[in-house]
């Protein structure tokens, strides 16, 4: 059975959901083709997805603590959004290229970036991204400027179509591209331009938008008076609305959309999720939202949901507990390594601005060295 194109159905009142908040399968005629796609994930796969989500969560919490203890300049929590991310990255094929924002920790880890590489970005220890995309299965570096990468990703997708590495009709080798951003970025002009070019040039790209409801302090209801996926349809893209805290829906819909994109039909997925933490450690969400709202989303936690599903599938409690223990240990190890890590060197941030020495950056470098030396230590 071929899943229907999502466009063409009347405006949906509910996002696509295969697992409800209690982890029970949601069976319906409309869901049948999606369940068929989700069936590509064995119980072992689902258990592995659960493990990745747990590890990312523990890592995330530990990094937040490290920031509060002065070890990181900034931290960007992804707590609550692991379900959308795990489904999307499991749906991507090996040859695909992924353009993240800065909150896609699970996706980066899945493709082979290390926790330490992510930490180094926020420690200020690495300039211009923590990893080499050639070594992370096409996982590009974090983009901290909002929505710029919607254009980079679209341009890259237009390029591979010209190269002929996409659009041959063989899903197992054709390359596709994913751009990850949020509801706030969707308001940026770059995001709209990306949609225009992707549609015009039938580019092999899927825009995966995690609508986490808050662009720092601005609610998504203010950013768009109607659902974002409907906006994408206006640009001529096939668009889907999914329960972003349901890893199975995220997997099934992304898998189908990516495979359509390989053949020149760009897509757009709005994942309905929630940023449980602050925007970054510089933000205080209690100033603009209520604890009732957070509580209602806590009950829809993606990790608890997949865990409940796994128990239903007969996975033993001990196995889940073991994953939890492992995640906690990994976070502890990371903490030790971060405390032992050498102080970040600020010098080399000047070395990559121009290819040849430049009087301005040379002067800036000298001034910074002088400033740091004024503290009298080895700062």
């Amino acid at each position, binding site marked *: 059975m071929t899943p229907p194109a999502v466009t063409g159905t009347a405006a949906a009142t509910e996002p696509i959901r295969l697992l409800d908040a209690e982890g029970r399968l949601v069976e319906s005629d409309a869901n049948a083709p999606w369940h068929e796609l989700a069936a590509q994930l064995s119980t072992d796969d689902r258990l592995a997805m659960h493990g990745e989500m747990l590890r990312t969560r523990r890592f995330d919490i530990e990094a937040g603590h490290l920031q509060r203890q*002065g070890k990181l300049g900034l931290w960007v929590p992804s707590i609550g959004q692991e379900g959308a991310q795990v489904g999307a990255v499991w749906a991507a094929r090996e040859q695909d290229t992924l353009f993240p924002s800065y909150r896609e920790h699970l996706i980066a880890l899945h493709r082979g970036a290390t926790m330490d590489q992510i930490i180094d970005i926020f420690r200020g220890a690495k300039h211009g991204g923590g990893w080499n995309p050639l070594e992370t299965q096409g996982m590009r570096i974090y983009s901290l400027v909002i929505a710029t990468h919607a254009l980079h990703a679209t341009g890259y997708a237009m390029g591979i179509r010209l190269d002929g590495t996409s659009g041959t009709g063989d899903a197992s080798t054709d390359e596709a591209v994913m751009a990850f951003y949020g509801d706030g970025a969707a308001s940026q002009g770059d995001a709209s331009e990306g949609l225009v070019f992707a549609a015009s040039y039938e580019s092999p790209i899927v825009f995966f938008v995690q609508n986490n409801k808050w662009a720092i302090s601005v609610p998504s209801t203010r950013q768009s008076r109607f659902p974002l996926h409907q906006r994408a349809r206006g640009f001529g893209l096939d668009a889907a609305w999914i329960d972003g805290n349901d890893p199975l829906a995220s997997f099934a819909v992304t898998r189908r959309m990516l495979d359509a994109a390989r053949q020149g039909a760009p897509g757009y997925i709005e994942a309905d999720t929630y940023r449980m933490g602050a925007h970054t450690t510089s933000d205080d969400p209690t100033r603009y939202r209520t604890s009732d709202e957070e509580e209602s989303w806590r009950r829809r936690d993606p990790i608890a949901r997949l865990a409940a599903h796994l128990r239903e599938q007969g996975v033993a409690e001990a196995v889940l507990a073991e994953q939890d223990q492992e995640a906690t240990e990994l976070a502890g190890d990371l903490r030790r390594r971060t405390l032992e890590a050498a102080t970040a060197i600020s010098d080399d941030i000047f070395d990559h601005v121009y290819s040849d020495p430049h009087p301005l950056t040379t002067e800036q470098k000298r001034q910074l060295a002088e400033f740091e030396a004024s503290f009298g230590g080895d700062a």
Partner: protein
Amino acid sequence: MQEFRLPDPGEGLTEAEIVAWRVKPGDMVHVNDVLLEVETAKSLVELPSPFEGTVEALLVEEGQTVEVGSPIIRVTSGDADAVETAADTADTVHKEEDGDGAVLVGYGVRGGAETRRKKPRTVQSVPAASAHPVVAKPPTRKLAKDLGVDLAAVIGSGLAGEVTRDDVVQAAKQAKVFRNLQAPEWAGGREERIPVKGVRKVIAQGMVDSAFTAPHVSVFTDVDATRTMEFVQRLKASTDFEGVRISPLLIMAKAIIWAIRRNPQVNSTFTGDELVVHHYVNLGIAAATPRGLLVPNVKDAQDMTLLELATALQQLTATAREGRTQPADMQHGTITITNIGVFGMDSGTPILNPGETGIIALGTIRQKPWVVDGEVRPRWVTTVGGSFDHRAIDGDVISRFVADVASILEEPALLLD
């Protein structure tokens, strides 16, 4: 022994206020246990412990503003290594400063390293508490905290200068007697520079916008509010109003809504081309909150019964006091009350909340001599006044409006009209 230095909890922040300690000397702490709450220009955050061990000393007090990089707490670690080095205190501190301070990415290392080399610049970076350690038992410390007694200022009568329970109780009694008479010492330095930021900055901009755009005109009238006071007493006794806070402000609010119906132009926005007269009342209440002056408003107050209005006002002030007022609560106000009476003031010339045409001040209500039927009698007297945007309305409307409000305070039964 290890010292935790105040990290930069935001991006490029240089200082934070210590809001509340969650631990006290002698407590065991684990890694990532919450030690304290600090407030920066951006947010209120909890700081988790980077160490495991026993809290030896809190180096800064609640309410103090501390520079990033200053040591704030000392923890004696449980492992043998650290205990050994703790013997050589000076050396340990030196190492901590160089090592730990350096990792505060980009902005760190200010406090310790700097103060070691130069004279301390202000009182902020030198924690006064650590200079003279106070000897007192934990229950005594708690009592002192509950009674608001500064232990460092109490002369201990116990062994080795220990501050006893009696000392604290005595100090609290003294403090009560002299509460309004004592002037605190000058803070150190000839000048103190307080950065203008956050709510202060917003208020400053709003006041400039308002004061230099709208020509203000202020009027006042004294009024005998004795019947309002009696009405308030009767409401308080009424079972319908049980559990709801009733104050003259409630009658004032109701009076303003009534008077707006008779003088609608005071409830308006002057845009330059138009006077937008609102046919609803979003009644703002100027509130002194932990975050500074905020003006949340009660939406559609014109549709509320007295009980609903009382409940809404109570909720609004409680939210403001907890510092949980949301931005939406402060938007789209149409008129404002400022209750300067709670500070004992008779009247004032308030500045308009930007975008509004009227702000009404309620003065303190106290017994004064008043002439009733040719005789001087003690009555509960207050002053009603306010400021208005003279671009939008003139003296006749303003005076009629204020007189209408005053007439309700004089005779709340008119509300039945």
